[in-house]
């Protein structure tokens, strides 16, 4: 029992982690907290669904198209909304992402309807045997996909010019700009990467919960909770925080109360902010004035 709970918790946590990676990426690249991240994922998943159903494309082709599709959603959104706000106070950027939330959320409901649709599972329904327990292949597959995305991100940030430029810009925007880093392009890359990663999380959620325009709201909250738990400005911290949230939430639902499973994340946010506001894995940074 406990092995299954932990495994499915890790799988859920991996989904949250992917969304949290997207959130932290944009926050690091542009100082904006993108409240529309989950809805961008949902939109991308709906488009994939249409390609599968009406477009008649086979599943592997759609999956291959998902990444560029997500990147395009992110990039177009960034170009249309962010440039006029670059010199405005950060609160304005945040308000703009809330406008995006409304557009994507209700736009999807308007276009695809408000009924949940079933999305084909990406993995075989046969359970696998692990540690003497039967674990759903779906869980293992989700964890595997998440690990792959993380490795790709690691390579991008450590070994490519674009990645290094992004890290520089996130540390000190003005200094990076003086060194010839194009800050506008960093913002664009951040949004495109985040869009691609979040569509992966959307594709992993949809088979679990049905494809629905509401499906990412609670996932977004849990991604936030995980990112705060791990420390909002570290990518690995956010991932570990989300995995913890996934497992703890599953245990909470099984042993304490399943009705309040979704509010567990809010409790975590408040407790973490009270006890260790900088998160588990970052030291609090003294700001230089």
């Amino acid at each position, binding site marked *: 029992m406990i092995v299954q709970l932990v495994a499915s918790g890790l799988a859920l946590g991996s989904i949250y982690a992917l969304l949290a990676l997207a959130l932290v990426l944009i926050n690091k690249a542009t100082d904006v*907290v993108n409240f529309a991240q989950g809805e961008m994922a949902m939109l991308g998943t709906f488009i994939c669904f249409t390609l599968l159903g009406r477009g008649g494309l086979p599943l592997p082709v759609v999956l291959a198209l998902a990444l560029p599709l997500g990147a395009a959603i992110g990039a177009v959104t960034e170009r249309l*909304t962010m440039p006029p706000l670059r010199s405005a106070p950060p*609160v304005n950027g945040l308000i703009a992402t*809330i406008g995006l*939330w409304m557009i994507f959320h*209700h736009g999807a409901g308007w276009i695809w309807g408000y009924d949940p649709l079933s999305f084909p599972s990406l993995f075989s329904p046969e359970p696998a045997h692990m540690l003497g327990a039967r674990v759903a292949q779906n869980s293992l597959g989700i964890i595997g996909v998440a690990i792959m995305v993380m490795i790709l991100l690691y390579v991008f940030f450590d070994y490519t010019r674009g990645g290094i430029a992004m890290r520089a810009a996130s540390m000190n925007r003005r200094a990076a700009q003086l060194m010839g880093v194009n800050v506008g392009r960093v913002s664009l890359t951040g949004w495109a990467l985040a869009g691609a990663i979040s569509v992966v999380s959307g594709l992993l959620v949809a088979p679990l919960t049905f494809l629905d325009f509401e499906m990412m709201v609670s996932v977004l909250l849990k991604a936030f909770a995980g990112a705060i738990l791990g420390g909002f400005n570290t990518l690995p911290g956010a991932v570990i925080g989300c995995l913890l949230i996934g497992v703890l939430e599953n245990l909470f639902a099984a042993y304490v109360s399943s009705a309040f499973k*979704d509010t567990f994340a809010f409790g975590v946010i*408040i407790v973490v*902010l009270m006890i260790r506001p*900088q998160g588990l894995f970052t030291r609090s940074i003294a700001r230089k004035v």
Partner: protein
Amino acid sequence: MTARVLLAVAGVSALAAIPFGLGNYGCYIMASVMIYAIVALSLNILIGMGGQISIGHAGFWALGAYGSALAVTKLGLPFLAGVAVGGAVAGAFGALVALPALRVQGHYLAIATLGFALFVQQVLFEWEWLTGGRQGLFVPRPALFGFEIVSDFGYYYLLFAIFLLLAWIAGNFRNSLTGRSLMALRMSPVAAECCGIARPRHIIIAFIISAVFCGLSGALYGHLLGHLSTETFSLAASLSFLSMAVIGGLHSRAGALLGGIYLALAPELLREFKEAQMVIYGVLLIVCVQFLPGGLISLPDRARSLLRRKPHGAP
């Protein structure tokens, strides 16, 4: 200055006269204008003065509405006392959410309020014996000194008076030491803190005042509707509040009123678009943040400065 006073007097008398030309439904819409305007006022204090954002004001709205409804129905308090209870409950929870979130820089408060709104909605839904859960809760009509205010026409004037009172309080708060400190913090946290202004304390005060205003509005709304259900207090409501406050104008009380008018009238004007309405609101919100950050209320000033610049500015 005198021009502004004249304009304000003209606006107030127009608002006092309008309901005479309206039917029952029109009075209901006008009453909701006032209720939304109070929420916009509360967001003015939080965002316009404090530079903090909340995407969970529907949560405080709900607390105010249920707090007042339960105080009136279960405890037998009079209407105005019930409304005060609603505001107090919302304020207390405002402190609970803001206290932890403000120890850190960044947008943690916004995230915490998002979680808070979802939390409140779920608790109200699950706590069936108290709140009626799925069935909802019936709320009696407002009553003053033992007289029930049966028509929305009469209630509108009460709401209008309450709005004016709260706007007056908000104006005084803006000019108080705390209000000025808050605005200094928004403009430059570092400079303000160097002058000895404590950031967390001031923002918490702003957040609590904002939550109380929002709770009062929710309480008044409950008595207008006559029936509460948790669907009213969804995330979409929080986001509509935010967009109305931004579109009306975050830095002025007249802007808050415009925001209320916008939120109450837009669904009537955009009825043709049905499901696309929220999409239009989203687009308007983004366009407004990009090109008219001062909101609709700053439109005359913007137009004037554009006209004045034209002869000189062109290359």
